[in-house]
C-alpha cells in the first residue's frame, strides 16, 4: 500500500510540471498584457512596469526563475494587485472556498445518498421515480439559475436569509452552500442508487436476510457499505471540483473565495496569479484523486488484497 502511494505521488510530479509549463507559455501567448488598459500607456511607463515585473527578460529565463521561486514556495507578486503576493491571495481565498465546498459536499452527501438509497429500496416505483427525477433536474439546473432563484425566494420574497456575503451576517452561508451542493447531490443520488441496486442483488445480502436480521440492519450495516462505494470514490474528485468550480456561486453571492481570484486573474492577465492558482488547484486535484483511491482501497477489501500482492 505504501509503495502504491509513493508511486502515485511520483507520477504526480511530471503532471504538475507539464501544467506549469503549458500555462506559463500560454498566458504569455494570449493577446493583451497585464498592463494594457483603455488609457494609453506611454512607452516609458510600459518599460518601467516590465522591468519591475521581470517581463523584460527572455521568456526562458523568466520560466527558470519562476520555477526556482516556486520550489522555494514563492509564487511571486500579483501583477494586478500591487503589494500583494500570489501566496497571500490564495491562502486568503482558500479557507473560504474550502468551507463553502465542505458545506456543499456535506449537503450533497446527505441529501444525495439519502435520496439514492430511498430510490434503490423500491426500484421502478414512485419512491424511485420522484427522487431520481428531482436529481435529473438537479444535474441539469445550472447554479447561475438555481442561485438567483433561491435568492429571490428565500432572500427577497420571504426575507429569511441574506442575499450575499460570507460570514458578514447571520445565515449568509446557507444559500451559497445549497446552490453549490445541489448539483453534486444530484450526482451522488444517482451514484448511490446504482451502487445500492447492484449490492441489493448480491448473495451476501440474501444470507443476511436469511439469518433473520431486521431489514434496517441489512440495509444500514450490510448494503450501505458496498452500495456507497462509488460515492466514496467520487468524493475526492468532487471536492477538488468544488474548490476549483465555485466561481459562479462565488460571483452570484459575492464570496471572496479562490474561484473568483482564479477567473479574475485570467481576465486581468495577472500572469503570476493565473499560474499560482492553476498550479495550486491542479496539485489539489491530483492529491484528492490519490486520497479517494486510498479511501476506496480502505473500504474495499478486494482492492486492499490487490495492493498487498
Amino acid at each position: 500500500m505504501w509503495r502504491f502511494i509513493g508511486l502515485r505521488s511520483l507520477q504526480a510530479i511530471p503532471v504538475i510540471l507539464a501544467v506549469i509549463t503549458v500555462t506559463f507559455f500560454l498566458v504569455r501567448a494570449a493577446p493583451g498584457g497585464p498592463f494594457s488598459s483603455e488609457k494609453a500607456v506611454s512607452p516609458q511607463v510600459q518599460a518601467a512596469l516590465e522591468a519591475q515585473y521581470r517581463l523584460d527578460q527572455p521568456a526562458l529565463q523568466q520560466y527558470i526563475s519562476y520555477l526556482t521561486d516556486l520550489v522555494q514556495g514563492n509564487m511571486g507578486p500579483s501583477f494586478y494587485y500591487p503589494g500583494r503576493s500570489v501566496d497571500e491571495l490564495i491562502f486568503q481565498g482558500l479557507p473560504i472556498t474550502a468551507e463553502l465546498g465542505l458545506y456543499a459536499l456535506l449537503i450533497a452527501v446527505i441529501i444525495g445518498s439519502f435520496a439514492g438509497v430511498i430510490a434503490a429500496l423500491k426500484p421502478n416505483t414512485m419512491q424511485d421515480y420522484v427522487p431520481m427525477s428531482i436529481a435529473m433536474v438537479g444535474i441539469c439546473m445550472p447554479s447561475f439559475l438555481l442561485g438567483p432563484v433561491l435568492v429571490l425566494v428565500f432572500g427577497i420574497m420571504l426575507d429569511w436569509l441574506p442575499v450575499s456575503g460570507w460570514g458578514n451576517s447571520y445565515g449568509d452561508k446557507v444559500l451559497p452552500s445549497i446552490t453549490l451542493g445541489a448539483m453534486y447531490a444530484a450526482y451522488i443520488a444517482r451514484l448511490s442508487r446504482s451502487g445500492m441496486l447492484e449490492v441489493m442483488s448480491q448473495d451476501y445480502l440474501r444470507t443476511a436476510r436469511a439469518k433473520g436480521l431486521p431489514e434496517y440492519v441489512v440495509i444500514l450495516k450490510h448494503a450501505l457499505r458496498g452500495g456507497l462505494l462509488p460515492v466514496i470514490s467520487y468524493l475526492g474528485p468532487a471536492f477538488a471540483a468544488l474548490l476549483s468550480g465555485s466561481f459562479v456561486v462565488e460571483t452570484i453571492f459575492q464570496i471572496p473565495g479562490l474561484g473568483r481570484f482564479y477567473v479574475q486573474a485570467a481576465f486581468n492577465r495577472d500572469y503570476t496569479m493565473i499560474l499560482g492558482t492553476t498550479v495550486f488547484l491542479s496539485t489539489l486535484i491530483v492529491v484528492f484523486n490519490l486520497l479517494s483511491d486510498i479511501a476506496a482501497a480502505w473500504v474495499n477489501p478486494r482492492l486492499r488484497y490487490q495492493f498487498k500482492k
Partner: protein
Amino acid sequence: MTPTSMQVFFKMKLSRALIPALLLSLFLVSCGGGSNESRVITGNQQGVLHLGNGTEPQGIDPHIVTGVPEHHIIGALFEGLVTKNPYTLEPEPGVAESWEISEDGRVYTFQLRDNARWSNGDPVVAEDFRWSWERALTPELGSLYNYMFFPILNAEGFATGAIDDFSEVGVKVLGERTLEVTLREPTPFLLQLFDHYSTYPVHPPTVLAFGSPSDRFSQWSREGNIVTNGAFTLTEWQVNSHIRVEKSPYYWDADEVKLNAIVFYPTENIVTEERMFRDEQIHFTNEVALDKVPVYRSEQPELLQIAPYLGTYYYLINTTREPFDDVRVRKALSMAIDRDLLVETILENLYLPSYALVPPGTLGYEPPETFTYDPEQARQLLAEAGYPGGENFPSFDILYNTQENHQKIAVAIQQMWMETLGVSATPMNQEWKVYLDSTDNFNYSISRRGWIGDYVDPNTFLDMMITDGGNNKTGFSDSRYDQLILRDAPATLDQQERFKLYQEAETILMNAMPIIPIYTYQSKHLKHPSLKGMPPNIMDYYNWKYVYLDASQ
C-alpha cells in the same frame, strides 16, 4: 404490515431523517450570530455608510492605481491641495487653505493650513507634497497617471527620463507650509488636477519604512501600515469582500465629517448588487443594470438617481485602412446612424444622443453642431466616394468588447448601415484584453470606445486626438488641431476665448470624423432614502465630508 416491520419503517425513517436535519441545523447555527436587522438600518443608527463600489480595487496607493472604485476609497483616505464642492464642482480649500495665482497664470502659490495632519499626528507640510510628486513622476514607479502633472514645468521631462534632477521641475518648497508650482502654460483647469488622487500626498516616512519609493511591491499602503491625511483611515481590507474606513480624529475638518465609517463592497456583478440593495445590505449601488431602469422608473422612481455623466460612447474608425481613409465614407457612416431611435429602442431612453466628442455642459463649454442624422446626404456622400448604394463596398467588422449592450448597439448600427447605405458590417466581439490589443495595433476597421473625462474641461477629451496621441487610435492627424490643443488653448487665460479655440478644434475633428459619436453617458445609481449629501453631478463625484445618513427616513 406486521407490527415489527412498522417499527422498522419508523425507526429507519426517523433516523434517516433526523441525522441530516440535525446536521443541517447545526450548520445553520454555525453560520454566524447577530441580529436580523438589515445593514442599512443598523448603519443609519451608527453612522456607517454601506456602499456598492464596482470592482475590487487594485490597491490604494494614489500614485499607482487608476480606477474609479479606487478613486472612491482614496478620496476618503487622502486629501489633496484642493477638493471639490459636490453640488457645484467648484474647487474648495483642502490641505491648502488659500492660493495665489500670478498675473500670467503660470505660478501658483499654495498656503497649507497649519492644522492639517497625518493620521499618526504628524503635520502635513509642503515638503510632503514635493516628495510625493517626485515619487509619482519617478520613471521607475511606472505611474499610469503621471501625465496629470505634465502642465507643471519640466514634469514631463522628468517623467520620461530626459531630466534627472527634480529641482528643475516647477515645484518649490518656499516655507514649511508654502508650496510654489510653476507651469509650462497657464492651465485654467489646474486646480482640478490638484484634486485628482494622482496628485495626493503620501506620508514619506511610512513609504520609506517599507522600501524604495518606486517599489510597486511595497507593503506601505496595507491596512495597519498606511498613514493617510484624509477624513477617514483604513481599518479593514479583505480582498473581494470589503474595505472599511473610519473617521480620523486627526483630520483638520473632523467636526464637519458626519459619517463614522464607510464600508466599500466590491460589486462587480450588478445583478447581485441590485439584490443587495433590495435586501438593504447597501445604501447605494455603483450601477443599475439598463434593463432594471424601466422597472424602477415606473415603480420606485424615488430610489433611482440618474444624471448626465462626463463620458462619451463612440466608434473609432481606422483611417489608415481603405475605404475608411476617405472622409466622405466616414461621414456617410456617421450620418446614417439614427441616434434618437437607438436611444429610444435599445438604451431605454436613458442616454443622450451625441454628435460630438465632448459631452455638453462641461463647465460652460458647448460642443459644436457639425452634422445631424441625414440618410439622404449619407447616401450621396457614399456615392461620391465611389460606392453608390453600397456597391463594391468591402464588408467589414464592428469590433466591441464582450458585453450585451455593446452587442445590441452594434447589431442596431449594422442594420442602419445596411438599410440606409447598403454596406455590410459584421458585429464581432472580443474579450476585453484581446480587444484592447486589436485596437492598439490598428487591427480593426470600426471599434467601440468609451471615454470618461478625468476633469471637467474639454481638454480631457480633445487632447486624446492629437497626432500620435496614445489614445487617438484612429490615425487622425491635423496640424491645425495639434496647434490649437497643444499651444493656443493652454496659453489662453480667458475662459470664453479658450472655449472658442476648443470649439474650433472640435469642429476640425468632427469634419474629419475619425470617430463616430453615439451617445453621452449617464451615471445611474440606486440610493436609499436615508442617504443624503450625495448629489448627482457630471463627474459622478462624491465628497465624503458632505455625506450623512438621516435615520428618520
